[in-house]
């Protein structure tokens, strides 16, 4: 099962992906998750609590950041743990979209007999500001 990491070294970037978030994406996530907090669809409500405007659900950012890992793992393993800190808002304009760039780095490999490893995630807005901190995924073989 150590084959998951064969050919990779610590610090290697394993995956890079960019996703476009629009207001439509937020409505879709609200429905799918049941999180109907109006700061995610009404500028006036968002501004009344001191925000610039409508922002993406933190859990939407967290969810999309891990998606390429599951795809990459296929049936070889599963996400055993996943943690993030929400550090910066992702504002989404009424028209158009914002791009979020996800980068996944191999941060730590456990004993080959265990085969699990820790991946570090970076999620950044277009201008380079990271929006998640302490973002780590532990993947384990099945």
């Amino acid at each position, binding site marked *: 099962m150590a084959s998951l990491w064969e050919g990779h070294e610590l610090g290697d970037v394993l995956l890079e992906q960019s*996703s476009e978030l629009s207001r439509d*994406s937020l409505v*879709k*996530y609200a*429905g*799918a*998750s*049941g*999180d109907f907090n109006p700061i995610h669809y009404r500028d006036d409500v968002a501004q009344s*609590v001191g925000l610039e405007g409508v922002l993406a659900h*933190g*859990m*939407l950012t*967290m*969810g*999309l950041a*891990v*998606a390429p890992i*599951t*795809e990459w793992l*296929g*049936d070889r393993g*599963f*996400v*055993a*743990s*996943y*943690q*993030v*800190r*929400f550090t910066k808002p992702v504002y989404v304009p009424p028209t158009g979209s914002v791009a979020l760039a996800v980068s996944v780095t191999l941060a730590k490999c456990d004993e080959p007999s265990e085969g699990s490893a820790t991946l570090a995630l970076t999620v950044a807005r277009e201008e380079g500001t990271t929006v998640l901190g*302490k973002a780590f*995924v532990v993947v384990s073989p*099945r």
Partner: protein
Amino acid sequence: MSVNPELLDTIFEPTEPYLVGREKVREFASAVFASAPVHHNLEAARAAGYDDLVAPPTFPIVIQEKTLHQLLNHPGAGIDFTRVVHGDQKFEYVRPLLAGEEVVATLSVTKIQTLGGHTMVTSESVIETTAGEPVVTASSTLVIRGDEG
């Protein structure tokens, strides 16, 4: 209003059973751009060794949210939910959660910390099948912002 320190170590009642629906898994996966076949295609999930569709890693937030609702609405909690910001989130799996499983979630408050006028409340929601098999623990730190002035 300030957070009641006696909340620490409080364990809430388990939630009503939640049935993880196959279409809900597909809908949630689409909403988080998760296109892995194990979230969408039953044959692919079975070929990968699962009995049904695999819920995406952050899907348990849907179930955990029901326990956070209990916490925020607890009359003695002293949490002003208009001042709550989601600080940290974590999922720790025993194994993947699958469509067709019926689960309950039980929240306990594990840490209360005050820093610079803000209060951080950390809770763990243990999600297990109705048969009592633990599947995933979802933990959140909620930051309750203090008065500005």
